[in-house]
């Protein structure tokens, strides 16, 4: 039997439906792979071999009995450890939640279970999803499978690395400022942040409630679409959940793969293409080169390329680093040593609370809580939080004007290929610049995708191509993304992941 972990999720589903492989074989192959490489990669914080194999065996039994099954039944999946999972440890990457076993499932966890997908385990992340490298995880960093000395992106570096290391074909991520798209970019994988409200946030441990969005991660555009349709849809447990059907993203991915983009207008965001100094500066040469080549491919597929300007994006990063900390400082107040998690008992409950939070939270979490506390404090609220909310309006207006001229907008996902672990850990501002191109979408609530555009010639590491669409138009991402993926695969004679270096297999 060929290596089952190298198949796409769609191929796995087809092979099981055709009776060629079983879910137990498939799940065991992934557990074996995790055993062989995760000591080096550290994508997982918790592995549930028993639970995954039990789900797989039940799917195989039902299939043998002729029971009708969901499309991805039996295809294994990894969940970012930000999603609560009944009976499985959930930490959000924080020591303050070490050992916590949630008493309920997130809505997305429930949907994954209902789709009969074996849950392999929980993936690593920056603590409470605050970071762009997983170096702020309370449990040690994840390593990029392309080069173990480098960052896998963040906060969802664990989910992206699990895909790139062939440890899982599908993973769930969350994207508050780029935490799905930036890790996808630096690991040569695909990730989508759906329209805000397109996927229920119930049971996703909140970072910044007006920015957070759960989304699908995979190695191909079609696989990402298949998972998107499992995760999406209205949920009355989340008051911000969109009350509308899931967009037809699978159909859009299949249409795009045919390669015809005639009539599609693609807008290049001037401020995000790396030509200018300031916020747009600092783009690596190879990132710009691969971006331009991808644009040429899209044009060859029939798309019309136009340039658009979004002048207020220059202020988006600043607005984001006021809104996010403000909301986070409020959301993280619940870690108070009373109802769950760590308690460092020291005198009164208030003293205990302060001692617990000092010990349980890492430096980046403390920085952002303090920054948010400052931005919301009397005398500073209007200048900081109030102004940031106005910038949010200006960013939305920029997007609205740009989408008058183009059906989708594009940019490099992140300015550089993955940097070395440790390189930016003590420089918060340098770390924040990773997300300069992804943050505007979160401020405006619109959907975005990152997919591989190649390898930078100077270092042989993956580069990412970002596509953005208007709110509710997630399907456009998949149509354009699948067309680009097909054009690049034709040139490369396979996917980018086929060109990734082999990891050392340890027994």
């Amino acid at each position, binding site marked *: 039997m060929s290596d089952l972990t190298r198949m796409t999720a769609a191929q796995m589903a087809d092979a099981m439906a055709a009776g060629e492989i079983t879910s137990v074989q498939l799940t065991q192959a992934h557990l074996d792979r995790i055993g062989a490489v995760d000591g080096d990669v550290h994508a997982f914080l918790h592995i549930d071999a028993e639970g995954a194999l039990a789900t797989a065996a039940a799917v195989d039994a039902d299939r043998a009995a002729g029971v009708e099954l969901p499309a991805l039944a039996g295809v294994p999946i990894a969940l970012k450890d930000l999603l609560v999972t009944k009976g499985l440890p959930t930490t959000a990457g924080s020591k303050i939640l070490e050992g916590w076993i949630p008493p309920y499932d997130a809505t997305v966890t429930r949907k994954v279970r209902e789709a009969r997908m074996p849950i392999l385990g929980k993936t690593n992340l920056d603590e409470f999803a605050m970071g762009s490298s997983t170096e702020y995880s309370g449990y040690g960093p994840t390593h990029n499978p392309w080069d173990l000395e480098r960052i896998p992106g963040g906060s969802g570096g664990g989910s992206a690395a699990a895909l790139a290391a062939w440890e899982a074909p599908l993973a769930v991520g969350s994207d508050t400022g780029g935490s799905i798209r930036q890790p996808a970019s630096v690991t040569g994988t695909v990730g989508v942040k759906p329209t805000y409200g397109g996927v229920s946030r119930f049971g996703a441990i909140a970072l910044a409630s007006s920015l957070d969005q759960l989304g699908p991660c995979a190695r191909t555009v079609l696989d990402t679409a298949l998972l998107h349709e499992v995760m999406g849809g209205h949920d009355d447990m989340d008051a911000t959940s969109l009350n509308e059907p899931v967009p037809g993203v699978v159909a859009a991915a299949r249409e795009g793969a045919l390669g015809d983009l005639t009539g599609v207008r693609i807008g290049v965001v001037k401020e995000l293409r790396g030509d200018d100094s300031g916020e747009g500066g600092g783009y690596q040469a190879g990132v710009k080169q691969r971006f331009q080549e991808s644009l040429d491919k899209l044009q060859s597929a029939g798309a019309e390329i136009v340039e658009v300007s979004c002048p207020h994006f220059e202020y988006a990063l600043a607005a984001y680093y006021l809104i996010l900390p403000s909301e986070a400082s409020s959301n993280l107040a619940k870690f108070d040593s009373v*109802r769950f998690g760590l308690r460092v008992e020291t*005198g009164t409950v208030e003293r205990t609370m302060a001692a617990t939070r000092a010990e349980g939270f890492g430096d980046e979490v403390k*920085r952002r809580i303090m920054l948010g506390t400052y931005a919301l404090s009397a005398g500073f609220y209007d200048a900081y939080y109030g102004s940031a909310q106005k910038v949010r309006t200006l960013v939305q207006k920029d997007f609205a004007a740009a989408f008058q001229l183009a059906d989708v907008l594009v940019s490099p996902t992140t300015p550089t290929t993955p940097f070395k672990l440790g390189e930016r850990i003590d420089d918060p501002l340098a770390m924040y610049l990773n997300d300069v191109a992804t943050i505007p979408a979160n401020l405006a609530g619109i959907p975005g995708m990152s997919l591989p555009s190649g390898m930078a010639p100077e270092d042989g590491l993956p580069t990412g191509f970002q596509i953005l669409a208007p709110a509710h138009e997630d399907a456009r991402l998949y149509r354009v993304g699948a067309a680009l993926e097909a054009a690049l695969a034709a040139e490369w004679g396979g996917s980018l992941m086929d060109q990734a270096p082999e990891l050392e297999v340890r027994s």
Partner: protein
Amino acid sequence: MSSLERSDVARLAALARIDMTDQDLDRMAGQLSAIVDAVAKVAEVADSDVVATSHPIPMANVHREDVVRPSLTQEQALAGAPAAEDGRFRVPQILGEEA
């Protein structure tokens, strides 16, 4: 915009209920000042005629039927608590000795 002094950071830490050593305060004061200086630029374009946006996709009056639904049992709700007693969360004393 002014930079943050160590005393400012100490006050914020107290408000945020996070104990900090003197060393922590010094490090945080430097890092937070750099971040605050960088983000203060939002005020440059935040004119009074610009409306503030708090939520990316506007929604209003999101309600559900006011009916009882299945929820956690008392035992489940207390299962993750550091301490519980008689079906309740148990906490250290609320008031200090001097109160």
